[in-house]
């Protein structure tokens, strides 16, 4: 019998009599008897917090993955999260606030979101960012919807280099919107745009940068396809690599989408994460989700407020640009704080350490027998290798040695895929700035033993 209710039995009695009722059940008396639950819910009775904590600990202990040295990536990365970011992002004023509907008492969240938008804008190289979406995958869906709204068309050319889960999510939502999604296959890790079906009825051309197999492909090809076929260029970009490589904006993207977990959010078994979303100015009225703008208060002081609300569902209802309401504000605020901690120098250092570490590991593992590069394209911080044994077996075996070796591409794609052949033998490996020389050595020697 545990809960967080203040009411004493006396108070309940007085309150009931004040409203002219005799019992708590009377409050529900107008609900047809037949609908009311007899005998209570079929779940265990309440237990005090410390009793529940015992069970939570049991679940935690059953997660062997929690203790492993992480070389898995695929859109979820094991980056440093300093104490200071955890402390600030967990301030209860942020955590226990609602969406900032009353700006006069929500300047904290609003200004943090403004800062977040500014940072996403710089990362993406595009002028307008929104205040977050659920995750990278759903950000892609919103980008397709935006492209549809902008062009009136429904055909989407999506590179097979886009994360397989994102492609799957896009396909799911396309069943509602009716968008036709054409997956354009990769050749040696890089999109073969020439193989896309002909036609200038394209709403969006979607490229990943780098793509999910780690490969960097020059985006002028995608931009050209978009130009030729009249669609928007949507770039799904890794925001950490963005500190080293050209931004989506520089490549000519109309829309940027990305996964922002890398900025201060733990791996979290996949969520809550952070959908990054930015656009050129001409798409601002089609922006999904919220956007915070600067303004002034009655006395002329700077203030922030959610703006352009006429796009939103609570006003436009069925004509809204998106149905997103609750988004991932706290994760966006966290990202702003983490980027504030990193600063220009730290972000560059992280990106560089990832890249240098990944290339060191790549060079070393690909010289092992039974291990080969899965494609020949350049990469930043994540790479794919083809193994003599099924990747899932290798992951299992290396877990026994304390290493989460990476992700089986076969498991990610769920089987045959236009991105790569025989994905079950391909392992996706990522190195973050947290990985040390000793950990790399251990990886190489263990993989050497296991892969045979």
């Amino acid at each position, binding site marked *: 019998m545990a809960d967080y209710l203040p009411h004493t039995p006396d108070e309940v009695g007085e309150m009931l009599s004040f409203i002219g009722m005799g019992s708590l059940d009377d409050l529900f008396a107008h609900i047809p008897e037949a609908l009311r639950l007899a005998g209570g819910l079929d779940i265990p009775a309440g237990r005090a917090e410390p009793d529940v904590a015992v069970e939570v600990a049991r679940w935690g202990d059953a997660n062997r993955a929690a203790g492993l040295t992480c070389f898995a990536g695929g859109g979820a990365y094991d980056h440093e999260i300093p104490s200071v970011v955890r402390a600030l992002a967990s301030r209860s004023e942020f955590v226990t606030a609602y969406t900032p509907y009353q700006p006069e008492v929500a300047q904290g969240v609003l200004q943090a979101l403004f800062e977040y*938008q500014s940072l996403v804008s710089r990362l993406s190289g595009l002028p307008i960012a929104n205040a977050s979406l659920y995750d990278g995958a759903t950000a892609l869906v919103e980008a397709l919807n935006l492209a549809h709204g902008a062009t009136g068309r429904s055909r989407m050319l999506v590179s097979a280099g886009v994360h397989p889960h994102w492609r799957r999510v896009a396909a799911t939502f396309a069943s509602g919107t009716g968008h036709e999604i054409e997956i354009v296959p990769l050749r040696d890790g890089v999109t073969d745009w020439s193989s896309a079906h002909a036609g200038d009825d394209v709403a969006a051309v979607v490229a990943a940068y780098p793509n999910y197999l780690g490969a960097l492909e020059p985006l002028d090809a995608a931009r050209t396809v978009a130009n030729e076929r009249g669609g928007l260029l949507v770039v799904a970009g890794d925001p950490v690599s963005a500190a080293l490589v050209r931004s989506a904006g520089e490549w000519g993207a109309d829309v940027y989408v990305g996964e922002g977990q890398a900025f201060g959010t733990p791996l979290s078994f996949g969520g809550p994460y952070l959908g990054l979303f930015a656009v050129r100015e001409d798409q601002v009225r089609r922006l999904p989700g919220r956007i915070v703008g600067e303004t*002034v208060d009655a006395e002329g002081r700077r203030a922030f407020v959610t703006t352009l609300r006429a796009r939103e569902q609570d006003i436009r209802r069925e004509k809204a640009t998106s149905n997103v309401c609750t988004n991932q504000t706290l994760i966006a605020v966290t990202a702003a704080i983490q980027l504030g901690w990193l600063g220009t120098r730290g972000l560059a250092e992280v990106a560089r350490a990832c890249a240098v*570490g990944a290339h060191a590991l790549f060079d070393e593992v690909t010289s092992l027998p039974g291990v080969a590069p899965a494609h020949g394209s350049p990469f930043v911080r994540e790479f794919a290798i083809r193994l003599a044994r099924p990747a899932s077996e290798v992951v299992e075996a290396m877990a026994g040695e304390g290493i989460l070796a990476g992700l089986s591409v076969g498991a990610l794609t769920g089987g045959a895929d236009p991105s790569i052949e025989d994905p079950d033998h391909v392992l996706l490996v990522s190195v973050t700035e947290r990985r040390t020389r000793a950990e790399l050595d251990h990886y190489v020697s263990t993989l050497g033993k296991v892969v045979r």
Partner: protein
Amino acid sequence: MMAAMPGARAASAPLMGREVEPTMFELSVTGRSAAQLRTTGIAPRDLGEIIPSEHLRDAPLETVALSERDLVGHVTRLTHRQFSVDLGMYPLGSCTMKYNPKFCDTVAGDPRLASVHPGAPAALTQGWLELLVTLEERLCAITGMAGVTLQPAAGAAGELTGLLLMRAYHASRGDVRRRVIIPDSAHGTNPASVTLGGYEVTTIPSNDRGLVDLGALRAALGPDVAGIMLTNPNTVGLFEEEIAEIAEAVHEVGGLLYYDGANLNAIVGVVRPGDMGFDIVHMNLHKTFATPHGGGGPGAGPVAVAPHLVDFLPGPRPTRLAEGYGWGEPAHSIGRVHGWHGNALVLARALAYIEVHGSDGLARVAQHAVLNANWLRRRLAETLPAAYDRPCMHEAVLTASPIKSATGVKALDVAKALLDEGFHAPTVYFPLIVDEALMFEPTETESVQTLEALAQAIESIAQRAGSDPEALRAAPRHTPVGRVDEALAARVLKSTEDAARPR
């Protein structure tokens, strides 16, 4: 002197007062950084060696440049400009801003949960899988449904998922349907989701009791109706007593009933959507199950379905196996609706909340939420009459229209004045069908003393509406900024540091 240096006034702000807080960018001084990274011992290498130059940035990416101390000062000061549940009452109707137990924060922060990679194989993540399966089972029991997906990241995502399930179900029967019915009181996400689900919205009016007009519903029904979306209690806080009749009518034409669970807090443990005849139910874990709202998210919007829809659920689903747990794909899955498995740490919080309360505690939640709302409604009856004069559920839609006619003071002014009294405002101008609506949802975690204080604050505002309406229109004044110019923000968009300043 050094007055012209970059870096703004990095210092302090009065503990109270209306000092503007500089942005991170204004606080930046090139060369500063708080970052301390691990010493990896990996040999450095030139970028040009490993990444082809056509890809490399021309100029470094400039973000911000702060000392750790200035970052801490900045963010901490921002939090002092932010209202929150932990600071006071937040009676925002439809939002269920109840107290969020700190215990659930601890659960979500446990590194044995938080540090698990979502792509690690099932054998390495048995604890998470058990947790998710347990939560699914609890949510099924709570809703009276047969299966659940935990993937949707928020209520609206749950709605759209539900509509796609509806579509898949009809499609599987070769049934092409065009329309989804929504009451005029519905939350805006419902019609938006219907559109994204590929359906047309048919809006039906509420009757003068604030409920679905059964006649209008019947008139709107037909073989092209895929289903209806309802909240129950509905958005005016009233229970749709004729829900059985509604269900029958919709089912009769082959439609499905979708339950928008944003108001589940009113009935959790007392009535189950499944028993009312719903086929699809989403829940807002950030409402009923007290996962904190985070200033606008993250939330979680699991969708529970009746047996005939289980095979269509998004996959992969966590599954109990003969030994241990694994992932399974429903036979006719609509596919993924999230990049991974949903907002997992939010799910863990919600399960912790459910386990603490249990069957008995959850029923108490609903009872006390409804008690509080009815007490407040009655207590305010003379000041802000209820839009519908009958017992409400967990929230009460009141109206400021008598005040407005008498004094010109609007619902918005009352709301802003409440900020000055130390309360968050109720939801204003929603639902759209009530004139000068003020929608109060006290939730079960507020004491009657707090409700009384709120009532007194409102009474005082109502009095001042007569004596000094101008002062109310100038409210709030005890807030970090005064009333905000929303029109300016929309007219000249400045949404980043790099955009020109509106003036």
